[in-house]
């Protein structure tokens, strides 16, 4: 199991568009990926789940991956978050 913490810096938070892109990125891998925020965990491959958290600016989130490509998926998700301007 791999785990990584992020702080969201984007003013608009994880709104609909970046949520879609994050889900698309995670869905390319076979590992189970979860996003945790404020004690709630959701499947990072489920678009409605991710958006339901309403993750905003300054939020501390944890992404956990479990599976054959757990390292790769975390790297890809981290890169996507940066590219989308969600993190610094």
């Amino acid at each position, binding site marked *: 199991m791999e785990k990584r913490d992020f702080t969201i810096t984007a*003013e*608009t*938070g*994880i*709104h*609909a568009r970046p949520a*879609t892109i994050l*889900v*698309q990125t995670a*869905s*390319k891998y076979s590992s189970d990926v979860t996003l945790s925020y*404020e004690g709630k965990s959701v499947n990072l491959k489920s*678009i409605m789940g991710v*958006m339901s958290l*309403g*993750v*905003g*600016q*300054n*939020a*501390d989130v944890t992404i956990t991956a479990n599976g054959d490509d757990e390292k790769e998926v975390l790297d890809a998700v981290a890169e996507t978050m940066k590219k989308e301007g969600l993190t610094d």
Partner: protein
Amino acid sequence: MPNSVTVQELVEKVRLKVLQGEDYLDRPITTSDISRPALEFAGYFKHYPALRIQLLGITETSFAKDLTHEKMVKYMTKMCTPQTPCFVISTNLPIPAELKVAAEETHIPILGTHLTSSQILSNMTSFLLGRLAPRKSLHGVQVDINGVGVLITGDSGVGKSETALELVRRGHRLVADDRVEVYARDEQTLIGSAPAILEHLMEIRGIGIIDVATLYGTGAVMPNDKIDLIVHLETWTPDAKFDRLGDRGDTQTIQGVIIPKVSVPVKIGRNLAIIIESAAMNYRAETMGYDATETFDRNLNKLIKENSARDSKKKDQQ
């Protein structure tokens, strides 16, 4: 030759009376433009649109009364060209005697109506536009879903006909299977229908040709319908990107008409009929002003703002 309509069809569809020339109704009409020959009655023939239907109303016929017999003979003879499809006289007016003779000699029918010139002009124009517009044949299936015209496209064997059959069983109507003939009725309306030979028919792999009207009743078919939405069925692949939120706004332009389009991934176990049905209902809701994606987006942004404020406060306190 481009599309054409016979005078006979015009008489039947627009409900005109044949006043003269019953035997010449097979003349072709090749343009939807209609001429009101006012200047021709004044002897001006430099730009006479001979190919058009010539529509005479109160103005033309009363002006004719003031002309001498010789002038009228001359002008009416000039108006009766080999290309002129027919004359139409509105408001139950009498035919000018000189036109009667000239049209009879050249075998051009004269039609009449009780309607005014403006009314019959608009009726004839909309009929002719529909019949003379350029047509295009598309590969797909057209179904009317609760009043929303849906064109289902996708590769052969992806399951278009089977899905349409399921939609028919759910109470919707088949317009065309496999080949859909479309034309732009105006710049915003695309109309589709089945080629005459395929009307009401469907080909279902393993069964063959079935007649939907016979099997499921006359309520299960429709002769033609507008196309409001295109649903494209695509074989599912892990890399293909599909619209997850419903905000992509894809469109396809057919015959100059822009039609909204959704792409639906096909995967074993997905009930395509119910997905297409909800796509059609969602389209309908959107045109009525209810956009689920938009509403959700607004609510989400509100939630994010609230959470951001709370998290910032927490950080400041630390």
